[in-house]
């Protein structure tokens, strides 16, 4: 089937740039050359209010119309109990070295301690954050520090002797439970282990400080960060905590200290009031939360306001699956990197697999946010979208499908042997966060995260702009000043459109008083340029997803706003060799007006840029061993999945922008 499937409203055929001409290939290509400069930070025009005021900006590449930066805000190292139990030895400083483009040895290790595998990014990241689990930081430190009070405890002996066994026990007692408890060796009220966390926490902070490029070159930005890993009943309520700068609490707050998001934010606010720090939190793996990140919390107006302020983003794509929308929805592109279970503890037992509960996917969460806004007057779930790897091997940003070595934790471990198949088949290399910032600095990126001018990519560095406004002139895609006009006449991704009555009336709509203009959106994308060794994959289409509230019911609809004239890229990809696919376009741009918009109804819109099919990591493996399903003897042992339809061999990589919200009355 070609095209997406609108899920509501009359007519199955998606509206193409309603009210405007459909973009032709020629126009797209013409616009591409203009957009390329603009999207990547073209000449700095005087834009006045467009740029975030950054009085101390210092980077040589400061760009008022903002430039896209790619990074990974979810990275684990050997300081995380689970990664350590999997034989990972790389530390935060190694993760940052890797992010900056240096080669890194990864598990397994031989008897001499030499890494038996190595990895390197083809393109360094612009920014990264090591987010080791705050839980068990102190316990692990004690277990590996001779002379520490807990070193000779049974738990620590078990951890050193049978690390995986210890991880199973410890995660059950302290992570995947309603009531986490510290072990006896942590002393009264767990103070010994809590204080022991100061050592590794300092290591994390020092590594971030060391990696941050404070020169005018601004080549790399690191963030002090950690992961708060709640797991009531095995349902993930994990959040990464990102600090704006080097200031952070003396100790990270863990799930053992605070068991709910509200408690976490309150404690962080208290700690940061003392330390002068600023922070935001980013929940992830809503697909494994059974909705508990959103259903249990945020009942009051005050809670909703605090949440909206402190939790501006969610991570919708990573190693452990995609969380944008539920598989099986009318939108065919939702069947993408979905896990077949709803909690990690179901994973080993197929008979226990269940579908994730309500509020496990971004679209459901957005819809619930609109409902809460109608009830509370505040939408606590105005969340931008990013992606990350969640690697547990310290391999920040390693998203290449080709040569994927796995990311550990939850997947296959590679702890003691180089595996034939490096990960659980349902897992994937994860994605990246795209951030529109004036410069590659903590101040600028943090501001972009706060205002949600960010997007998720499933790995490729697709460059996407998404603007929405009521006053855009036609022909934005042909404009040489797309970004300037986009900011001047509306808002970028993550923004909120003002619909106050004093904004005026729409002359196009008859000029009658009270008749509102229609919101217009501009989405422009450039394919990942790739490298000489691994060229990027062309784009297939641009879509705008609309979610709105009508009579208390949430509706959603997907619009194809730009498509290539390529008909069936699935056929153009030779999955047996994974040779570069044909078809698609290097760039796409569309301007689309929502003719169905009703100013009385809350709505949000986000854009998706979807590539033509390319080989998934499983497909690359099957191509490498030349698996031929017509000849059983060509299938090596362990590669039977190459001939199983249930295991995807191709993938539709994508970028998903943060939404633009429009609420009645602003």
């Amino acid at each position: 089937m070609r095209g997406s499937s609108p899920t509501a409203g009359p007519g199955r055929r998606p509206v193409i740039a309603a009210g405007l001409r459909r973009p032709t290939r020629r126009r797209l290509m013409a616009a591409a050359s203009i957009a390329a400069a603009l999207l990547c930070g073209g000449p700095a025009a005087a834009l006045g209010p467009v740029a975030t005021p950054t009085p101390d900006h210092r980077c040589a590449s400061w760009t008022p119309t903002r430039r896209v930066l790619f990074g990974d805000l979810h990275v684990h190292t050997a300081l995380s109990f689970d990664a350590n139990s999997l034989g990972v030895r790389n530390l935060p400083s190694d993760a940052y070295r890797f992010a900056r483009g240096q080669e890194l040895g990864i598990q397994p290790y031989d008897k001499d301690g030499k890494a038996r595998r190595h990895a390197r990014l083809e393109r360094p990241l612009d920014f990264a954050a090591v987010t080791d689990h705050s839980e068990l930081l102190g316990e692990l430190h004690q277990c590996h520090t001779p002379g520490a009070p807990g070193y000779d405890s049974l738990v620590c002996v078990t951890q050193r002797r049978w690390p995986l066994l210890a991880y199973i026990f410890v995660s059950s007692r302290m992570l995947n439970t309603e009531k986490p408890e510290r072990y006896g060796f942590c002393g009264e009220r767990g103070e010994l282990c809590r204080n022991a966390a100061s050592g590794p926490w300092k290591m994390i902070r020092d590594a971030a400080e060391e990696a941050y490029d404070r020169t005018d070159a601004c080549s790399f930005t690191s963030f002090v960060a950690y992961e708060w890993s709640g797991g009531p009943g095995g349902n993930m309520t994990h959040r990464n905590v990102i600090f704006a700068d080097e200031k952070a609490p003396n100790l990270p707050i863990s799930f053992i200290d605070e068991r709910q998001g509200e408690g976490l934010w309150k404690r962080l606010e208290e700690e940061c009031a003392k330390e002068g720090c600023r922070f935001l939190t980013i929940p992830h793996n809503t697909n494994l939360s059974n909705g508990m990140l959103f259903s249990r919390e945020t009942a009051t107006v005050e809670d909703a306001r605090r949440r909206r302020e402190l939790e501006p983003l969610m991570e919708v794509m990573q190693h452990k699956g995609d969380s944008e929308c539920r598989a099986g929805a009318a939108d065919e592109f939702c069947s993408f990197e979905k896990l077949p279970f709803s909690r990690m503890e179901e994973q080993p037992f197929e008979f226990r697999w269940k579908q994730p509960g309500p509020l496990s996917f971004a679209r459901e969460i957005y819809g619930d946010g609109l409902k809460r806004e109608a009830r509370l007057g505040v939408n606590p779930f105005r969340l931008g979208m990013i992606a990350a790897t969640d690697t547990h091997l310290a391999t920040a940003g390693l998203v290449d499908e080709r040569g994927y070595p796995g990311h550990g934790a939850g997947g296959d471990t590679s702890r003691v042997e180089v595996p034939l198949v490096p990960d659980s088949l349902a897992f994937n290399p994860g994605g990246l966060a795209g951030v529109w910032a004036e410069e590659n600095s903590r101040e600028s990126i943090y501001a972009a995260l706060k205002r949600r001018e960010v997007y998720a990519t499933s790995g490729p560095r697709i460059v996407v702009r998404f603007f929405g406004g009521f006053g855009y002139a036609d022909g934005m895609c042909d404009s040489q000043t797309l970004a300037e006009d986009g900011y001047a006449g509306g808002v970028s991704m993550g923004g909120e459109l003002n619909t106050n009555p004093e904004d005026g009336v729409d002359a196009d709509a008859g000029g009658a008083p009270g008749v509102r203009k229609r919101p217009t959106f501009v989405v422009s994308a450039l394919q990942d340029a790739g490298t000489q060794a691994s060229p990027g994959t062309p784009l297939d289409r641009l879509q705008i997803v609309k979610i709105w509230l009508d009579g208390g019911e949430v509706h959603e609809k997907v619009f194809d706003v730009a498509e290539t004239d390529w008909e069936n890229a699935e056929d153009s990809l030779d999955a047996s060799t994974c040779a570069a696919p044909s078809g698609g376009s290097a760039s796409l741009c569309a301007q689309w007006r929502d003719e169905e918009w009703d100013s009385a109804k809350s709505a949000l819109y986000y854009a998706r840029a979807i590539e033509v099919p390319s080989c998934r990591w499983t497909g690359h493996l099957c191509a490498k061993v030349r698996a031929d399903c017509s000849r059983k003897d060509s299938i090596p042992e362990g590669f039977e999945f190459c001939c199983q339809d249930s295991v995807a061999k191709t993938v539709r990589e994508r970028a998903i922008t943060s939404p633009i919200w429009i609420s009645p009355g602003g």
Partner: protein
Amino acid sequence: MTRRLASGLLWLTLVLCVPLPFFLVEVGHQPVAAIVQLLGVTVALIAVEGSDGAASLAAWMLAAQALLGMVVLALAATVLVRNIYRVAPARGGAAVLVLIAAILAVALTQPIYITPFRAAGLHATLTEVFE
């Protein structure tokens, strides 16, 4: 050597040396004695730190697999000894001792065990399993 003693010795050897498949989240091939060792650690953890879901479940799974392995190996030892004594009634004891020595030799020199929980590596000899 009595047949009963021979059976007992052979059973102990099999419990110590024969790699049996076992499952606890990961799959491995370990001697029953190693499974008992893991069971012991798990029970000790429960005794010291209190019970929780995973530890209790693991203890039950390990206990069940250890018990099953012991029973199977007891049957195997009994059948083997009976047949050895039937073939060589006068030298049955010596034959059993030779068999035990051969099993030990293989177990001590060949990495026939798959030990998913051991920190030092997946494939191991008997001494490495317990070292």
